[in-house]
């Protein structure tokens, strides 16, 4: 029996704050499981952390089905679920940062089945409920990214926000990685720069 899958982390590190999205698949009973997304904001200046209410990504029994083959296959399947949840968050965050409201709305309403053509109002309400939880986490991410960029890169801030959105859209799909980070920083010429954390040369004091 597999109770929990590995947690997948995606972080965006800004000069004075960091946004962390983490997801994990968890068995609900013997026959199904669900993947939840959690978002945390680390305020680096005053060493504070704030965690927001979790949001349900989806129910899935794939990891349990994979147990028929091997435990390793089940773990990989659970990790895949978690990766898909963080991918979805980053892709939607990227769309939000680029102000692609219509694409964001279409994507989210389709995924969560918040659809006026549904035959039952209850299905629509449940869709709206889950979509609302995600929209709140996206709002948190979006607000943090915008405020950090406006604070540290005030010149052309709007353009920088869109640049970050475009970067995230390419970067979001990270097959098989448990932990991945993007760093937004001032480079040697004190200009706005975004890089994958692995590409940043750390200068030791």
């Amino acid at each position, binding site marked *: 029996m597999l109770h929990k899958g590995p947690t997948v982390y995606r972080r965006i590190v800004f000069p004075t704050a960091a946004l962390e999205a983490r997801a994990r698949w968890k068995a609900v009973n013997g026959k199904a499981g669900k993947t939840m997304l959690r978002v945390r904001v680390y305020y680096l200046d005053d060493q504070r952390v704030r965690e927001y209410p979790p949001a349900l990504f989806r129910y899935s029994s794939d990891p349990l089905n994979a147990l028929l083959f091997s435990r390793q296959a089940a773990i990989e399947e659970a990790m895949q679920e978690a990766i898909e949840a963080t991918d979805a968050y980053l892709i939607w965050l990227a769309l939000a940062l680029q102000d692609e409201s219509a694409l964001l709305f279409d994507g989210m309403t389709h995924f969560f089945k918040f659809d006026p053509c549904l035959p039952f109002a209850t299905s629509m309400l449940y869709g709206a409920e889950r979509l*609302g939880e995600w929209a709140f986490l996206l709002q948190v991410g979006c607000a943090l990214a915008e405020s950090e960029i406006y604070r540290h890169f005030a010149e052309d801030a709007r353009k920088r926000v869109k640049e970050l959105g475009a970067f995230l859209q390419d970067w979001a799909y990270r097959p098989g990685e448990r932990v991945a980070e993007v760093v937004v920083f001032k480079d040697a010429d004190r200009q706005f720069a975004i890089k994958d954390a692995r590409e940043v040369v750390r200068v030791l004091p």
Partner: protein
Amino acid sequence: MRVKERKVVRMDKLTLVVEGVWATTWKDGMERGEETRVRAIVHWAGEKAWSVSCITDEGTLSPYASGELARQYGSAMADRHARQFLRWLGLCFKDDACSLFNSLDSAYLFNPEYRQRPSAIDTCWRLARVGVIASTLAIVFNQLRAAVCKSFVFEAQNYKRYAPLGIFAIVGECLRNFANAGGKELDLAAAFVELAEQRLKEVSADGVSVR
């Protein structure tokens, strides 16, 4: 300042109180804003009452901020939101997802298609608000639906009589009529029977269902 408007719906063993609460909000020792909240109190006979609530509207303080005028304004806002909530509940019973979606959209403008250049952060905020309202609505809807299912309506002979009319659609219509009329208290069972009997008469008069 805090003003409440209550609407009571009774169905068999369930008493549902939908309460619109308008209140001013304080910051730094000053009245700076206002918020309207809808609170649904669910009380099953013989059990402890419990409630769910959600903020349906908030903003900067209106210019009528003090005195009797503010009380009237607050009362109108609270009443309006409580009635709106009952109307949405009615649409849930009628399974009219399309009208519910459109009504929520016209209240919270979350669909970016019909607005000029909405920012994504604003769209997210609006969707988050609709999510909270949908969650409250779903909880209250399930309770009231359970009450209808446990009531006399679902007894064999009544069910046989009323089922062709669409029981939940009639309940939805009763709630909508109550919300539109702006009454304080609704005996849902009596309203249901009245409306259903009226429908049955209309059907038997021309032999065609009017649903």
